[in-house]
Structures are given as C-alpha cells and as structure tokens.
C-alpha cells in the first residue's frame, strides 16, 4: 500500500520537478495581475470588512488557488491516461486503488501548496502582511485542496476523453471560483444566492482561510464540513478507479 502510494506520488513530483521553472512562472502570472490591478487600481480606497481590498483579496486568492491547483491534477491524470497511456502501468500493477488515489491526491495538494506559497510571497512583496503562520490557515488550505483533489481524481476516472474533462471543469471550477466569496463578500448577495453559495465547499474554505489570515478564530463547523466532503469525494474517487477499465 505505502509503496504503491509513494510510486504514484513520486512520479507526479518528478514530472513537476522537470518543469518547475515554467510551473512557478505560470503560477505567478495571475496573482501578479490581481495584485497589480486591484492593489494599485483600488489602493486603499475600497475597504471591505475593515481591510483594504488587497488584504481581502489575498486570502481569497489563496482559497481559490487551493481549489484550482489541486483540481488541476485532473488534467495531469488525463494526459497520462489518454495521451501517454501511463495509467495502464498503474492498472496492470498490483497496487491498490486506494494507493493510487492517495498518490494523486497527495500530488495535487503538493501543487496547491506550491501555488499558494507563490501567492503569499508575491503578496508579501506588495506589502500584504497577514497572519499566515497558524494551523487554522494551513488546515483550511489542506482540507480545501483535499476536497478538490478528490473531486478531480474521481472526474478524471469517469471521463472518456480529455475534451470531456475540460467541459466538466468549466462546470465545477469556474462558477465556484467566482461565487465562493473569493473576490467579494458573500453577505452582499441576495438571500437565496447566499443559501446556495453556503452549500459550496469553496465558500467555507474562503471564510476560514480569510478569518485565520486576519488573526481571528474561524468557525470550526466549516472545517468539519470540508472534512466530511473530502472523505465522501475521496471514497468516490476510489470507487471510480475500477470504472476506468473499459
């Protein structure tokens, strides 16, 4: 079990390492643009919940990125599966489905953390000094990445082609990226929209990550919700590995 898990994880990390410069560069682009656009353009004129907009934005970006980067493992899996057919290597080997899913999920979380460190670093350079060094902050990132990495693996196993994958992610990821309280406070939306949005994992992640970055103690129920969702999707992901055999 542990060998299989590590083999899958190691492969993803070696591939990431091969293209690390490009990866860091591409992970820097959008936070840089956000910081320039919203940091300079809005400056200190816009205040949200007693913080400058850029201070409000950075934790939101962290929450969103922990989602998008960990979800990004689905396209890595797809390329390995449909293009290189390396997935066959795993399917033909005596590793368990749990080991496979765990390896991919761990790799997804690793990518998410890489992307987030880049955001925090860039934010720091732009003068955003928040309260990052606490378990609430990292716990929120970890759980959110876990949820979306598991969703990503499950979807990657269920799709029949790479094109399907792109189609699905525009349904899962794009709406959440905009609605989950990453760019604006959810409490300004109408009541019905708030109810819907509170059902999304990203809303809970954005909330706990932002609160903890502002030095407050977040609502622990949000962690519980993320944890339960993560376990459910992780279980689904394990079930879907067998379905990937045609």
């Amino acid at each position: 079990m542990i060998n299989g898990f590590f083999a899958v994880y190691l492969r993803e990390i070696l591939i990431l390492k091969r293209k690390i410069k490009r990866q860091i560069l591409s992970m820097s682009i959008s936070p840089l643009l956000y910081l320039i656009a919203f940091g300079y353009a809005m400056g200190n004129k816009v205040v949200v919940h007693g913080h400058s907009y850029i201070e409000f934005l950075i934790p939101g970006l962290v929450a969103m990125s922990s989602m998008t980067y960990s979800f990004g493992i689905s396209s890595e899996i797809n390329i390995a599966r449909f293009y290189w057919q390396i997935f066959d290597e795993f399917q033909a080997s005596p590793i368990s489905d749990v080991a496979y899913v765990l390896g991919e999920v761990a790799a997804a979380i690793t990518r998410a953390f890489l992307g987030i460190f880049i955001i925090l670093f860039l934010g720091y350079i732009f003068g955003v000094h928040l309260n990052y060094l606490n378990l609430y902050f990292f716990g929120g990132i970890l759980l959110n990445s876990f949820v979306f990495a598991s969703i990503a693996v499950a979807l990657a196993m269920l799709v029949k082609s790479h094109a399907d994958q792109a189609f699905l992610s525009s349904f899962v990821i794009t709406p959440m990226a905009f609605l989950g309280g990453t760019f604006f406070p959810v409490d300004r939306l109408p009541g019905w929209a708030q109810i819907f949005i509170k059902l999304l994992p990203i809303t809970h992640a954005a909330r706990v990550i932002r609160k903890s970055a502002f030095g407050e103690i977040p609502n622990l129920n949000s962690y519980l919700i993320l944890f339960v969702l993560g376990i459910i999707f992780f279980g689904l992901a394990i079930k879907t590995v067998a379905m990937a055999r045609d």
Partner: protein
Amino acid sequence: MDKKTVIKIKGLKKQYGSKPALNGVNLEVFKGELFAYLGPNGAGKSTTIRILTGLTKKTAGDVWLDGYHIETHPKQAKSQFGLVPQSINLDMELSVRENLDIHGRLYGLGSKHRKMRIEQVLRYVDMEEEINTLVKRLSGGMKRRIMIARALIHSPSILFLDEPTVGLDAKIRRRLWALIKKIQEQGTTIFLTTHYIEEAEFLAHRVAFLDKGSIITIDSPENLIQGVGNWALDFLEDGTLKTIYFEKRKQAKEYILTHTGSFSLRRVNLEDAFLRLTGKKMQ
C-alpha cells in the same frame, strides 16, 4: 518442458457495446513456453492481453495466471506478469532510471533491490549507458527495449508482449527477437501477439490463429505448416495471385513444366497455413 499450465483462459468473451471483440476464447499456455497469438488487425489480440492484465473488463469467462484467478486474486495474479503494451507508454520527460525506479516501487521492491535490478535489466537489454538519458531522447527501438526492461524489473514468471516489434525496421526487429528468445530461454513464459508471420514462425513453440475474436487453431508452427504441404507455387491467374501446394519440390517443378505462365516457387510458411484455415491473408 514440463506441462504446468501458467496461463489458463476459459470461455473468454468481450463485447464493446453490442460489438463482439472476443467470442469465447479457450487456451492454455505452459510454463517456459513461447506462445504466439497471431491474427490480423482487429482480431482481438490486444483485447485479450488487456483483459489478462487487468486493463479491460471481460464480458464473460475466466482467466487464471499461475493458478490465481484474475478477479478473485487480482493482486497475486498481477504480481506474476510483466506487460509490454502495444503502444509505448513510458514517461517521456523522465529518465530511463526514473521510469524503471517507479516501476520497481509499484511492485514493492526495496531500494537496494531496485537499484540492483535496474542495473541488471539495463545490462540485459544492452542499454546500461542510457540509464540517465531522458526517454524522449531515445530511438524507437531503444524505447521498446526499455519497455521490455521495465516489464522484467520485478522478475515476473510471465511476460506479455503486445506486438513488440511493430513499426521497427528489419534489423532492429531481429535484435529484439534475439532478446525475446533469451528471456524465454531463462525460464520466463512468454505470451506474444503479432501479425508478423516470420515473428511467430521464428520465435514460437506454439501458435494460436485468431480471427474475428475466435481461435481457429492452436499448434506448433511446424505442424501448421506441415498440414499445408512443403512447397508453395505462386502464380497469376486472371489478375489474381493463386497458390498451389505440393509435398515435394519435384511435383511443383513438373507442374511448372506442364503449364504456362509465370511461377514463383517457395517454402510453405505460416501465412499459407493461415490462408488455408481462414480463407484470407494475414496482412
């Protein structure tokens, strides 16, 4: 060769949707044997290997590898074999060593054992100098040899080779044949698919002819050829190539003398046996 069965396939069927790909395949492969699964494009060769190796779900039937049923004991069954799939599936961006190392880990080999086996198998396929080369920089023939090396890392007792020489030139193909023969001679049971007649004829102890998902016959290449005759005489009649078979060369010569046309006399090969049994050409 003792007669211990290491691959047993019983009533194996596969449907893709409503389209049948295998219609009840039965066969046994014995320990140490080199078994060739010969058939034209789309016969169901890869489908059979993919089911045996757990990549595709079967519709019906049973498969045992070294006594382990592939569904009730998948882990044990999967530990028995190495697989070289039809298309190259190495990690192009990783080095030869990294590719082999990941494979070794998948099969639970410890770090010392892995290091030793990587060196051994690379020496075996004569590629120890390429250990640190990125796979994308290797030639097609070299990639094939690395695929074989990778499949051997965990010292499997069965090796599945799905069209191992497809797309390679004649010289490199012969080199791979020598390697495959060497692997078999050291005791590994080999199940090989091919649509190259010479490949099966040169390598195999026994051959199964597969056509449209059904096995037509299973026998040694010698017996299959014997069944047809010894000499084949090709000639053109009304614009199509015809072939007649003879036991003795003298009989063929006599035929040429008593008929007009342009003839070409050659030894009978497996292609003739396939043509005789299925009424169609392999390639």
